[in-house]
Structure formats: C-alpha cells, structure tokens
C-alpha cells in the first residue's frame, strides 16, 4: 500500500510546537536584525541552543547515535516552520547535509563519534560540493592525492553554506589518478583550522551564510576519509588505495550513489523549507488582498487577482503533496535510491517553480509597498532565488528526472 500522505497526531503536535517556537522566538524580525547588524556568525547562537534543546538536531538521527528517530518527516515539518520565518540556523548545513553525509557514508566509529556531538549542538558542519556557478555534482575537479597514508586536497569550492562558521567541512573530491568513474568520489572531513584551507565568507542576496573555500595541499588523515576508517587494515599507501575502499562500510553502493542519497535527502528537506516560505508569502499576500482597498473595494474582490491567487493555491497544493510524499518515501525502508531520486528531483523542481511564482506575485500584488525594504515580503523573493539555485535549480532537476525515467 502507498505511504499515507496524512500527518499522524504526533507529527501534527510537532508542527504546532515548531510553529509556535518560530513565531515567538525566531520571528522574521530576527532575520532582519542579523542582516542589518552584519552579524559575524549570521545566526543567533542562543537561539540555536534552544533549537538543540527542542531536539531539532536529532530529529532524523537514529536513537543509537543519540538522536530521537522522528524520521525525515519530523525534520521536514520543522523545516517547513523555519521556512515560514526564514530562520537563520545551521539546520540545513549541519543537520540536513552534514549529519546525513555521516550517516550515509561514515564508518561506525565516525558515526558514534560525530553524530552525538551534532545532536548535542557541539559540532557545526559545512558541506563543500559546488565548484562553479551552477550545481554539477557529476563534475568534481577538486582532487585528493594519496600522500603519507592520507590525502592532500587541492581545489576550490563555492556556495558552501555555513562555510565560515563550521568546525569541520566535508569536502567532496575526486581521487587523483582515478578515472571519472563515480566510484572515485570521496568525502573528506577537514578541520576548519587545517593549514592550507582558506575560507572567505560571501554575503548572499537572501542573507544566507555561504563561503568560498580554497584548498592548497590540505592534509587529511585516512581516519578523516568519511567511511575510510572502517577499512583500517587496508594498505593506505601511495596510490594503492582501491577505489572501492573509498566508499566505506557499505560497498554495495558506489561513493557517488551515497553522495546522491545525501544530496537527495537535503533537496527534499530544502523543498520542505521552501514549502513553508511559500505558504507564508501566500498567506501574507491573501491578507493584503482582503485588506487593501482601491476603487472603494478590497482589491481581492477583483477577478483578475482572484484567479491568479487561485492558480497559486493550486500550485502550492501540488507542491505540498510532493513534499509530503518525498518525506514519506525517505522514511519508507522499502524505498530504493531511484525512487528517492525521482521524488527529490520532482520536489526540488516543482517547489523552485512555485516559490518563484508566489514570490513574484507576492511583490506584484503588494504593489509599491512590496518594493520597500521596510516591508518583509521582499525577503521571500530573495530566498526563492537562492533556494532554487542551491542543490540544483528547476532545469537541473527536470533534466535529472527525465533521465531517471529513461527519456
């Protein structure tokens, strides 16, 4: 039987409590304050501590590693709510990307060491993947040269979310001398203070915290190859490392397949966050349509605007269904990689489109006041643009979706 698309009682309560928390403790005014003050961290550490106390960092982490086993749907519901008030926090980089990268690729020892620290809020991570102006995980040019029983990393990364505040950075690199084979991809855990690592913060249009990263002969020990440590008995010397060893404990999947799974989990989580932002813009816009009077009537009485609002409603409902189904697929142990991939690309493509639509209409329907910085609606348009670009835009995901369906 297909996964249910309804929320159970526990999930509904979780969403309500997350909504209350964001509304009271992390309103949009906080996002504005962080931007205006050019905050060095780009997020509020005190707020982050409270989010950790609520258990949000361990939502999708198994109980064996100190998490709460609420599943991806649980984390997705939280992200939907943080999306409503554009909460700046390490949830995406540290939890959605970082924790899942460790869960998917890491050895038992790495999971046991790192995951409880993430859940406790002690460790901030960043995920360094993109190298050019557009998302292209199939073309990684950062190289890892085997050296002294470990690796030396060289290359450049961009659009690295939370790169400037992370304690450790997970760098995606290709093993030098290897072919373009997907098995040659490795994830390397790099300390933020490592010699040769240069991190430059970039201020993005939506206030999201990103960085450019340069890697010049950054030494990474074999233990910090995510998943490599479990094969400690292997001769990690020179170029003797076998490609298959780079993928860690589960050798039934290539490193690229594991990377794809991590990215897909993050894409679905991001789509959930986008859904929350979309709902918020739409509700704010509807309120305005009901209140703003011109020609002696509320402008929402005009059919030209009513039909555009109804079309937005339709698109949002479709987006919501995709997000729910994608999260349910992640929580369904029977889902294979392809099923997750199809849902992730469908959700990311669709939500990107809908966020554009609603973000643009939000500005247009608010008229002049929507163009002012003093008014909040513009924040959502900015977020729409960055969220669409992050982890692959609509075009990237439609291309991938078509390929996954063999056409």
């Amino acid at each position, binding site marked *: 039987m297909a996964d249910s698309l309804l929320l159970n009682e526990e999930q509904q309560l979780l969403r309500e409590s997350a909504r209350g928390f964001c509304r009271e403790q992390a309103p949009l005014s906080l996002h504005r304050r962080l931007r205006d003050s050019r905050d060095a961290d780009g997020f509020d550490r005190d707020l982050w501590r409270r989010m950790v106390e609520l258990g949000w960092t361990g939502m999708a982490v198994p109980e064996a590693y100190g998490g709460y086993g609420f599943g991806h749907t649980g984390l997705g519901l939280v992200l939907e709510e943080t999306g409503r008030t554009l909460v700046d926090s390490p949830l995406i980089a540290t939890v959605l990307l970082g924790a899942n990268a460790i869960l998917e690729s890491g050895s038992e020892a790495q999971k046991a060491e790192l995951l409880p620290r993430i859940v406790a809020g002690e460790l901030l991570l960043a995920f360094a993947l993109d190298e050019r102006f557009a998302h292209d995980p199939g073309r990684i040019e950062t190289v890892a040269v085997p050296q002294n029983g470990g690796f030396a990393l060289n290359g450049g990364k961009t659009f690295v979310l939370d790169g400037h505040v992370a304690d450790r950075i997970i760098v995606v690199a290709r093993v030098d001398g290897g072919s373009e084979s997907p098995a040659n991809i490795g994830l390397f855990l790099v300390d933020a203070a490592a010699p040769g690592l240069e991190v430059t913060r970039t201020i993005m249009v939506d206030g999201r915290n990103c960085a450019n990263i340069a890697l010049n002969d950054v030494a990474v020990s074999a233990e910090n190859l995510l998943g490599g440590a479990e094969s400690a008995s292997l001769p990690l010397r020179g170029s003797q490392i076998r490609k298959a060893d780079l993928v860690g404990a589960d050798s039934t999947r290539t490193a690229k397949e594991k990377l794809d799974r991590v990215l897909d989990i993050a894409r679905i989580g991001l789509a959930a966050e986008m859904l929350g932002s979309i709902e918020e813009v739409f509700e704010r816009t509807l309120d305005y349509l009901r209140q703003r009077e011109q020609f002696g009537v509320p402008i929402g009485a005009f059919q030209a605007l009513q*039909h555009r609002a109804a079309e937005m409603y339709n698109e949002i409902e479709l987006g919501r269904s*995709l997000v729910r189904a994608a999260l349910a697929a992640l929580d369904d142990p029977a889902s294979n990689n392809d099923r997750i991939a199809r849902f992730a690309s469908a959700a990311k493509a669709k939500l990107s489109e809908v966020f554009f639509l609603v973000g643009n209409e939000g500005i247009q329907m608010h008229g002049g006041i929507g163009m002012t910085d003093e008014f909040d609606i513009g924040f959502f348009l900015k977020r729409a643009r960055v969220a669409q670009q992050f982890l692959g835009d609509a*075009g990237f995901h439609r291309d991938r979706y*078509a390929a996954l369906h063999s056409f």
Partner: protein
Amino acid sequence: MSGELERFRQETRGWLEENCPASMRTPMPPEEVVWGGRNAEYANPDSKLWLERMAAKGWTCPQWPAEYGGGGLSSAQAEILAEELSRIHARPALTSFGISMLGPVLLEFGTHEQRLEHLPQIVRGEIRWCQGYSEPGSGSDLASLNTRADLHGDHYIINGAKIWTSYADKADWIFCLVRTDFEAPKHQGISFILFDMDSEGVSARPIQLISGSSPFCETFFDDVKAPAGNIVGRLNDGWTIAKRLLQHERTMISGFGLAGGQAEGGGASEGTVESIAMRYRGDAEKLSDPVLRDRIAQFKIDSEAFALTSRRSAEESGGGEPNHISSMLKYYGCELNKRRCELLLEAAGNRALGWEGEGFDEDELSLAREWLRSKANSIEGGTAEIQLNVIARRVLDLPDLTGILRGKR
C-alpha cells in the same frame, strides 16, 4: 492491518481470480466501455458477464448500502477492492452518470422510495442516466436557466431546451434542473426532477464537435409529463442539490488528469507521453529535442504531483462528502489533460495531424481527435474560470465583488 481486513483481501482476490474474465484484464478500447441501459451494447460478450457478476455483489457501487443494491463496504474494504481490481488490471465493469453523479445525491437528498426505485437499477446498469443542466442561454450562469415545470394536479408539465446533454440520445432517464418558481430570485426557484426520456415530448439531437464525434446533444422538452413525486429534495431547493452534484461531477472529471498513467511508477509504460515521444523523437537514450524533453518532464512532475494531491484529498476527506477542493482537482486535472494532448501532438509531429484514411495508423489518427476533444475538458462541468472563482471565493475566502457592489447600491 487487522485480520478481518486481511481476510477480506484474500476472499476478494480469490473471487476476482475466479470471476474476472481474462479479456476484462486487458486495456479497454473506447468502443468497449460499458454504459449499461435498456439498449446496452456489448462489443465484447465478456463485458456483459463481468458486469452481471460485479453487480450481483453490488461491487459496481462498492460503498452504497446493501439495501439499495450496493456492496455495503466500508471505506477500508472499498480501498482493498480497488487495489485488488487494479492489481489484475481489471476494467471498470460499468461506467455511468448514475454511479458518479446521481447516486450520491439520491443517497444524500432522496427519499427511501426514490432510492429503492433508482439505485438498484443503477448498480445493475439497467438504466442509463443523462444530465439536464446547461441551456442555450445558461452556461456558466447556470442558475439563470429557463426550462419550466408547471404543476398540473399530481404531475408537472415540462417545457424548454437543454444543451450539451452528454449521451441524451442514448439515455433512458434524465436528472434535470427546472424552474418551478418564476417570482423568486434565480437560485431559489429551481427544482431537481427525474423523468423518463421515453416520455412523450422528449427529443434529443446529437451535436457534431470539432473532434468529429458527437457525445453531446441538444435536448428538447415539449409538454413532457413527470410525476410530482419525482422531485428530489424540497421544491425550489434544487440549487442545493445541483451544486452538490457538480462537486461529484468535478471529482469525476478531475480523473482526466490521471490519464496516461503518469502517477508514480508510470515509468516507460505504454501510452505515456514520454514513451510516445521516445518512439517519434528519441535516440537510444533520450529525446533529441531538449526543449520538448524539458516540457515533458515538467508535465510529468505536475502529473505525479496531481495524482498525489487527488489521493491526499481523498485521504483527508476520509471517503466523505466532496467539497470545494473538487474545483481545484477539476481545474488542474483538465489543464493537465489538455497539456498532455498538446505534448502528444508535438511529439508525434506530422504523424499526429492525420484526420482519416490511409497513411496513418489507428493510434496516430486518434491523437488529433483526442486533442480536439480535450478542449472541452475545461468547459464541461463548469469552466476553468468558474472553478477559479469557486477556489478564490470558497477556499481562499476572497471578497465577492458582486455582493459588495449590490450592498453599495
């Protein structure tokens, strides 16, 4: 799952295994759709057998009460039946407006006697119904209708004309909106009445459409007699029933959006847009036209999201009454079906542009006609614009301009 439901599944599976003829487990050609009725035609004799067997169990209407001939199943059981039917790719045993539109409103508004008279015949496919709604002067403004019913003793005399009456030329009975009070505001003088299409004074004339086919008729009533007891619900309160029936109709029509097997797992199966596009425009791996490929991907994602939304909407209402969400499903489903037809034409290029005769295979000839037929999707059952009005007003609670202006006068 409870043991009882599991047992029901096993019994159902066993029964279907024994009773569903092999030819009823193959894709259904349009000419083999079973509509039932007094003059029912069975292009395939197995269709008749399949209908009789399903009707005997009440499974043509699984959730209707057993006392009216239905299956009396709970929503959980009905879902299992649907799953088991779909597992063996069973064809629908019966397609009818009695099942999808009239039955549900008789169950909600009809008297016990009316239900006893009509529902079992619908279940068994013995009577084919048509819908007397639109009139030449009353399309989107349906409530302005002028077909009149005047009381003469114990019966009404009906005069007027309907249009776009689907299959009126083949139907046995009609459910019809008539004006019974000419003084009252337009919404408050309408009644919902049932009568036999064989009655003296009824005539129907098929209308040829741009697609070449004639599913719709002009229907004329010239002093037609109908018993007063055939009014459903209260006199002059027919608009309430009319609107409810429209919700059922819209839910039914929204199913067009599920055409072409675009739901999850639809994959490269036969008949999908992408499989047809690959046949005409594909190389070994992908479609050669990147723009068409992108648009098909977008369409397929929307189709998948729509199928999920239909399912979520059914789960949320718990199998209960339809609501205004049916307007959203109707609107989107129809737009999707139109998009599907457009993409198919584009995919097949000039092979899709044949009208008749040699040089094209049968599937190719159907493409243009199906495309033309699809243009009616966003007109029938309430236009796209009417659905958007309903969503804006009833779902989004946006203000009513007409009401505001009336208040200001």
